[in-house]
Each structure stands twice: as structure tokens, then as C-alpha cells.
């Protein structure tokens, strides 16, 4: 059994969590097979930066609203 399948089998959780982790593992493994360690890193950084960028954009907008309109 390849390491890819072995890890996929090892991942646990309910159906949703399993699907989610399974997809993430597929992305990680594909990234690794394409570009090695950097491939893994870029998959994860891309995933998290998608979240952090959205978060930071919302935070910036709300902070501006708070300081421009919610303060004297």
C-alpha cells in the first residue's frame, strides 16, 4: 500500500470531517508529489492565506467602520 493510501486509511472522524480531512490529505499528497516539501507548504499556506486574507479584509472594513463612524 502506498503511503498515500496508508495515511488516507488512518484518518478518522465523522463523515463530514472524514471527507474534509480526506480532501485536505489529497491536496497535501498531490502538492508533495509535484513539488516536494515546498508543495506541501504551498498547499497549506494557500489554504490558510485564503482564510486569513478574507478575515483581514473583513477586519479592516469593520475597523474602519468602527473608527470612522463609531467614534467621535
Amino acid at each position, binding site marked *: 500500500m502506498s503511503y498515500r493510501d496508508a495515511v488516507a486509511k488512518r484518518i478518522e472522524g465523522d463523515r463530514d470531517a472524514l471527507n474534509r480531512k480526506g480532501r485536505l490529505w489529497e491536496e497535501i499528497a498531490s502538492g508533495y508529489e509535484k513539488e516536494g516539501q515546498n508543495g*506541501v507548504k504551498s498547499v497549506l499556506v494557500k489554504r490558510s492565506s485564503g482564510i486569513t486574507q478574507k478575515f483581514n479584509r473583513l477586519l479592516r472594513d*469593520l475597523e474602519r467602520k468602527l473608527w470612522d463612524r463609531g467614534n467621535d
Partner: protein
Amino acid sequence: MISLRRLTIKGFRAYTEVKEFSFDSPMVLLFGENARGKSSTLNAIEWCLFGNECMGKGTGIRERINWELPNRNTKPPNVSVMLELEDKEGRRYVISRSLAPHGRRRGLEEKLRINLPEGGLVEGEEAKARLQQLVKLSFRDFLTTVYQHQEAIRAVLTQEPRERNDAIDRLLGLSDHRNILTGIEAARLEKERREIGTSFDSFAKEVEVALQTRKTDLKERAVKAQQKGLGESQLNQREALKIAEGAKDRLVEFAHQIGLGLPEIRVPKEWKGLSQFERALEREIKRFRSEIPEVMRQQDLFRDRSRITELREAYRREKENEYHARRKFQDFIREKGTGKVLDEKIKGVLEEIGKKKKTLEKTDARATLVRDALEYLSSDVKGAQDRCPLCGNKAANLAEHLKEEWEERIGGEVRKLQKEIDNLRTQLEELEGSSQEYDRLKEGLESAKKRANEVNRRIAKVLAREITERDDPYVLLNKRLGSIEKELKELEDVVSSRQDILDGIAHLLNQIEAIVDILNGEEKMRIVEEIEASPEYGQMEELKDELAILLDDIGKIKEAVGEVSHEEARQKIGAAEKLIDNYFRQIAGNPSVTNMRFSVKVDSRTARNHYEFKDQNGEDLTPVLSQGDLNALALSIFLGMATSGAVKESFGFVMLDDPSQSLGSGHKEKLIDILNEVLKDRIVILSSMDKELQDLTFSRITGAKKKYVFSDWTPEEGPGVKEE
């Protein structure tokens, strides 16, 4: 098991011309100095079987990064490797892998072909699938059980535990797991989670503080509004607009009353326009305060009062100056006379001086005569030398007599006259000084009179009437001041009542401002509340949670990778443990180690494998192992894995590349003895530059041997390979 029978190489790395190798003996030695093409030979087998899989970072071998496959001196590049394999049923397959320019852009195209034992040829994807069926092993397993790479030994030789664990993972074919764990760590997502968490908490705190501040502000503003006479029910937009209407009406009426114009000011429809309305009304109130006719009259009167008070003071001052100047002048005249008297006195003194001077001149003439006579008598001239020319008396010693006479009669007279003249001159100086003082005092008096007249002229102008000798300007000014004060008193009440009206309107504006402040605060509080309840705020929380879930998932995957890696390591070590122990003790020949226990643990923090080598007493061996022992350990693990069946479907050959890097003579002998065991069921391809190892191979290997000597490598022809 798959056996290797024949290898043909052309244009691959060190090779230019076609070279062929046959593997019909169990021991094949590739012998020669460094950089003669030995490793390229082993690499060619590897590449033919696995293609691009054996290149790049993913291999875990540092030298494979930017690995250049085609030989640089072969133009155009034309790589071709052919490998003849034989399966356990004796069927032969010819694997051909090539790399050559393709198309106009001269890119290199890789081609794979397999000549099948049953006849026929397969290419491309079909060939790839067929090769996988035949080889069965992954490239990782190939590196673990077939091809002992130089770097695998070098890495084990390190004393740094993490690097050694990494190297052993590679020897066990677990590089992928370790690399993935390293890639996960390199992403540093915990830092992202902390930052997002901190940012969110900090913003939530800011929102909370803003809400509290707004609430406190509103309470304070309500108190201020009450202090300005507003009831709680008035603190709203409707009341604010109503008060604004009232203020505007009152200002319009006031303007009408005092006869001043007022630009059109509209009461806004919403409270937000009230600040502008307030500013406009304040501006007009300020203007009215200064433009009320009574106020302007007050200002004129204040100006007049100030001017008259100043004139009155000037008049008093100048009159006093004139009085003092006159008094001094009159006192002087009384004491020293008028200017005319002084002039006549000066004239008299001058005449007297003139007379005295004439007398002095005459006296001086006689004196000259006497002096001449004395000079004559003092000379040797003979004559009437005994009669005095002054007194006419006879004198025996005329010269002596004359000296006495001159002193008595002329000297005294001259001194007396000179003294009289001096006295007269002193008198003249005094008189002249007095005359100048007279002129100065007279001039001072005239000037004082002139200034007093100027003040009178100004008074006449201010009072708008002529001032005659009969008038007392001081009294006239006082009278005028009295009338001004009276008028000012009358105006004060009127102005005060006007200002009261304006104060009333200003108070209404203050009330409006207080309500606007409250409405403004309420709006800001609403905005802060909206922020807290906004979908964006909720999304931020969701994103924070999403990142936490992502990190949790990554953590779980990391654990799974670690577990798989650990389990696989444990299985492989379990399968090969005895052989590895046996090989290690044989090669290292360390009498203090009667048993080497090779085990694996999991580092709970990194999820990585941590390998332990303990002696029969459970003591850690790594701190006491020499470089040769560590080399022996690396070879033992490789040979153990290669021969134990830890990886199924293994090849019928192993390739050892420079295995004796740090081995001593004793170690080498033992290694050859072990290879004798290995040779029983597989071919050993041994690449080395070590003469001692070569000699040991030929003296101690009991099976058939073949030796390829690599020498005289040239860029044009590649390695010179000779079979011995």
C-alpha cells in the same frame, strides 16, 4: 525476483559513446577513481527503471536537485539506456528509455519502450504500466532495498540526531512521510492561528470598549442636557427641530425689531443638519451683538469719552507746563533783568574792556622803550649813562636804577590792568550766559503756550465750538463727559435687554447642541452595535473557527502520517532486526556489543520517527559509535532491508555505491564476508575506488566475479571501460 542481465548506455551523464555491461556473474565490481563514470552506470539503471522519479528534490538526495541527465558533450542530446531484465520464470524483458530532442522547439522528449518476452513491443503509457507490473517496487523501496546511495551512508555518519533519524527514515524508505511532516511544519500555520485569534480578540475588545464608552458618554450628555433645562422627553429629533424653529423665529423677530437684515436660514428636516443650522444662527447672533444700533451708539460714546478724557488730561498737563514756564521766566527777569537790560550791560562791559586794552597797549609801548634802553645801557656804548630817562634823575648805576624804576612804575601798572581786563571778561561771560538763559526760558514759554493752544484747538474740534479766552476748556470738557455718561447709562438698559433676547436664542442653540450630541452618540452606539451584530463580524468568527478546524485537521493528518511512518518503520525493522543486528556486529566487530537493538519511537511533538540503537544492556550506543561503526550501521540497515524480505517483491540484485567510506580494514573484510552471504540469492553490483576492498573482493568472495575497470574518462569519449 527480477534479475539484471545486460545494460547498454549512451549519452547519459558521464557517457557519450555506447557502452555495454553484462551481469552474468553474481559479483560485478565497478572499479576506478572518482569521476570516471561508475556512479553514472548505477544511475543509468535507476533512471531506466524509474525515469524522472529518481530526479529532483523529492528523491531526498541532495545531489539530485538540478540533476543534469544528458551528457554535455553529446550534441544534440541523445540519451539512451537499455536494460535487460529476467523474471523468476526466466522471461527476458528489454527496457529502453531515451531522451532526445523533439519538435521545432528542440524540447527533450522521454520515451519508454519494452520488448516483451513473448515478442512485440509496447510504448508510452502501456510500457509504463507494464514496467510497474514487472518492477512492483516504488522508487523509495528501490532506494531502501536495491540501491545503497553514497549519501545514505554519509547522512547516517552525522552525530546530529535529527539528521540521523532523517537518514534512517530514508534507508527505510520513509522519506515521503518525513518530507511531508517537514512541509507541514514549514507552513507555520500555528502562527497564523495565533495572529488571527489575537486580531479577533483585540477587535472584539475594541468593540466592547467602544460600546461602554458610548454608554458612559450618553449618560454624561443626558446630564448636560438636563443642566441646560431639557427634560428627558425632549431628547429627540422632533424636539430638537421644534426648538430650532423657535430659535429661528425669535431671531427673525429680533432682526425686525432692531431694523437689521437677516439672510434666509432654514431649519433642517433631520437632526444631522442641525449643527450647520446652529453655526449659521451663532454667526448671526454674533453679528447682531455688535450691530445693534444702541450698541453702535454705545461704541461711539465710548470712543468720545475716551477721546475727551484724554484731551482733558492733555489740557491739564499743558496748562501746568505753561504756568511753570511763565513762572521761571518771570523769576529770571526779576533777578537778572530783561534781555534788553542784559544786552546793555554786556555792551558796557565790552566798552570798558576796550578802554583797558588801550591803556595796556600804551603801557606796553613805554615798557618796550625801557627794555630797549636797558639793552643799550647794558652794552659798551659810552655817553650820558648816568641820567634816568624815566624820572630824569641822575643815577650812578643807571641800568640798575632803570630796572627798579621799570618794576615799580610799569610792571605794577601792567599787572593791574591785566587783572582788571580779566575781571571784566568774567563779568562778560556771566552776562552772556544769562542772556542765553533768558532766550531759552523765553522760548520754553512760547513753546508751552503753543502746545496749550494746540490742545485748545483740538478741544474746540471735539466740542464743535470755538474756544475763546473767556472759556474754561476743562470745565467744558467735564460738562461734555457728564452728558456722555448720562447717555451711556440710558443705553445700558436698552442694550442689556437686547442682549438678553440674543442670550435667550443662544441658550436655545445650546439646547439644540445638547440634543444633537445625544442623537449623535446614540447613532454611534447603534453603529457599534451593528458592527457586533453584522454578518461580517459573524463571518470573522467563522473564519477564525475555520482556520482552527483547518489546523486541527492538519494536526490529525500529521498524526496519521506519523503513525503510518512509525508503523511501517516498526514493521520493516521488525522484519530485518535480526539481520541488521547480525550484520552490524559482524562488520563493526565491537566485542562490547553482543546485541544491537534497533527500535523506533514517535516524537510526540513532531510526529517524526526517532530511532534508537541500544546494546544488550539497554544503553544508547550512538554516543560511543565511531565513524566506521556508523558506516557499518548504515550498511547493516541497507543490507538487512535488502535481504530480509521486509519489502516484498524485491529485486534479484543490489547496488552498493562506495560503501566503504569510513570503514577500516577489519570492517571491510567483514563486509565482504556478508556480501558472500548476500550473493547466494542475488547479484551484487559493487562500485568502489577502494583498492583494498577490490582486493578483498577478489580474495574472499567465493562466487564468480566480474570486474569493469573505469579509467581515462574524456569529455569526447566518456569513460574508458574495460572488462577484466
